[in-house]
């Protein structure tokens, strides 16, 4: 049976977020936390592979204790096992250090065939973690997938590559990154939602994954954010009056005046 690990992250719902107008920071108290949207697609990929080929799906997240909410959601959607990687000493990790934590935790979980991540988390928008896991774990990462098939010890994948479609064959184990265009996310069944609160979530801390405290958290992170500012812009706002033809006139006139329309 295949073993699949899915990396999911809890993020503030940035689309509905409340922002502090001075600092531009998200007001975390008044903003809901959700599963990172791309990660729903990552989980869906794992579940659909399980449906077709049989697999054991483990969801893993690194975050504060309350990040176990996304793991309960993962159970509701159908994950077989969930792991929370959490330690106060991980706080303030940038993308490189997040990947260090995740990769070490993943290696502790035993042998696997696939690790699936989202493309990008909506809070940081770095899209680093997939590529860096590929480096840490020394295995290829495939993105922009349309079709996925397992053929013995290989995967056969159709994907978009720049403007081009590509069909490739690659041996397992392997990393996949999923975005919103890759699949359609299933809706959890009510009975699964009821049960998911009772399923056990295993915890891993720094002591479990190994390494020195100085390698993790803000202390280990190479990048330092020195300032965050909210920004705004305003413009002329000339509101065009009259009927639709008059407005067309006005725009055509402007295009000529600006030397954009040269006929």
């Amino acid at each position: 049976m295949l073993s699949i690990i899915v990396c999911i992250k809890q993020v503030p719902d940035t689309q509905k977020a409340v922002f502090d107008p001075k600092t531009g920071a998200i007001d975390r108290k008044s903003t809901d936390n959700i599963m990172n949207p791309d990660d729903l697609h990552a989980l869906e990929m794992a579940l659909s592979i399980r449906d077709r080929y049989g697999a054991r799906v483990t969801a893993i997240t690194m975050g504060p204790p309350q990040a176990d909410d996304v793991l309960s959601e993962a159970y509701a959607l159908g994950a077989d096992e969930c792991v929370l990687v959490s330690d106060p000493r991980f706080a303030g990790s940038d993308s490189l250090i997040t990947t260090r934590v995740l990769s070490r935790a993943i290696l502790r979980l035993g042998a696997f065939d696939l690790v699936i991540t989202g493309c990008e988390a909506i809070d940081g928008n770095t899209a680093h973690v997939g590529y860096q896991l590929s480096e840490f774990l020394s295995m290829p990462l495939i993105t922009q997938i349309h079709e996925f098939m397992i053929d013995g010890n290989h995967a056969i994948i159709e994907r978009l590559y720049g403007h081009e479609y590509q069909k490739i064959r690659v041996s397992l184990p392997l990393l996949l990154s999923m975005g919103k265009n890759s699949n359609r996310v299933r809706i959890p069944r009510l009975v699964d939602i009821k049960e998911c609160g009772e399923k056990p979530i295993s915890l891993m801390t720094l002591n479990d994954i190994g390494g020195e405290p100085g390698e993790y958290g803000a202390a280990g992170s190479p990048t330092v954010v020195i300032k965050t500012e909210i920004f705004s812009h305003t413009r002329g706002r000339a509101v065009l009056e009259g009927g639709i033809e008059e407005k067309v006139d006005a725009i055509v006139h402007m295009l000529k005046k600006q030397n954009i329309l040269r006929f």
Partner: protein
Amino acid sequence: MKDFESNNGWTRDVWVFTEIQDHERVLDGALELLTKGREIADAQGSKLYSIVFALDAEQYLPAVEQFGPDVILYCSDRALKHYDSQIFPDLYAGLIEKYRPSIVLFPSTEAGSDLAPRLAHRFSTGLTSHCTGLSIMRFDEYDRSLLVMQRPAYSGNAIATVICPHTLPQMATVQQGVFDRKEIAGGKPEIIRLPFEYDLATLRIESLEAPVRWDKPKVPLEQAPIVVAGGRGLGSKRTFDRLFELSGLLNGEVGATRVPVFNRWCGEERMIGQTGKTIRPRLYLGFGVSGQIQHTASIIDSEIIVSINTNKDAPITGISDYVVTEDASSFLSRLIDRLKREKRVQ
């Protein structure tokens, strides 16, 4: 974080990954980055390197020379025709190891977004992605000058300023279209050809079918002088498609918010915004676009912004030079009719 030794063999040089697009031309974003890199190198009195990996790489060097690098390092081989996520990082890491630049810049294209985080991992250094501002500043507390990187934060509602004070190289990826490009006359860079040595038998990804060309814009959106963009307010693919008629008349390109892309009215390469492209056309026309920050942050440097929206208070009106309160598809078809008539008259 332990500090690097300042004289550990690291130079102050600035590197630009000079990406070749569609194996036919130097990526515009790379030329913009060379211009920016020149400015940064000059600010700290160091050298600017351009790194070119391609098939028949020599053909691109004259174009690259125009943008002022002191040194061009290039490698030419069939295996470099397409970006490869094993070969490129291996070669690039080897070069960084050898030449020790302290600043390494990449366009945030698919290739740059793959290459940069991999290298950051290999050198255990920081990477700031999708930067919109780069400069050099002296930091007394670190007793050195550092690359100051600005990038959108919190879904584009804010700008974060980031530094990488303890490790080298300092790395950033930059959206296309963010910086100007400027040719520099009379530069004669040193040109170094690197041998291509790679054991292709180690490649794990095997190609089964040659890539097939996909429908794509005539010029990349970032370069289009006129962009007519559509949003949800256009209602259907059918009306969205009429944007192509308008862009044809104006000699522009069609762009979109995320909504048409998700609805498959058009391809992803036309998406403008935080997850798409940053544009700076002379004219931006937005049809049925509400103007969420994830979209508008990437159009704000357009010279003229016109919005067509039924809602006179839609957020986009706040950043519009001209506000047209009309049904997007009616206004679109009237404007097309009118321009056709204008064209015939001449």
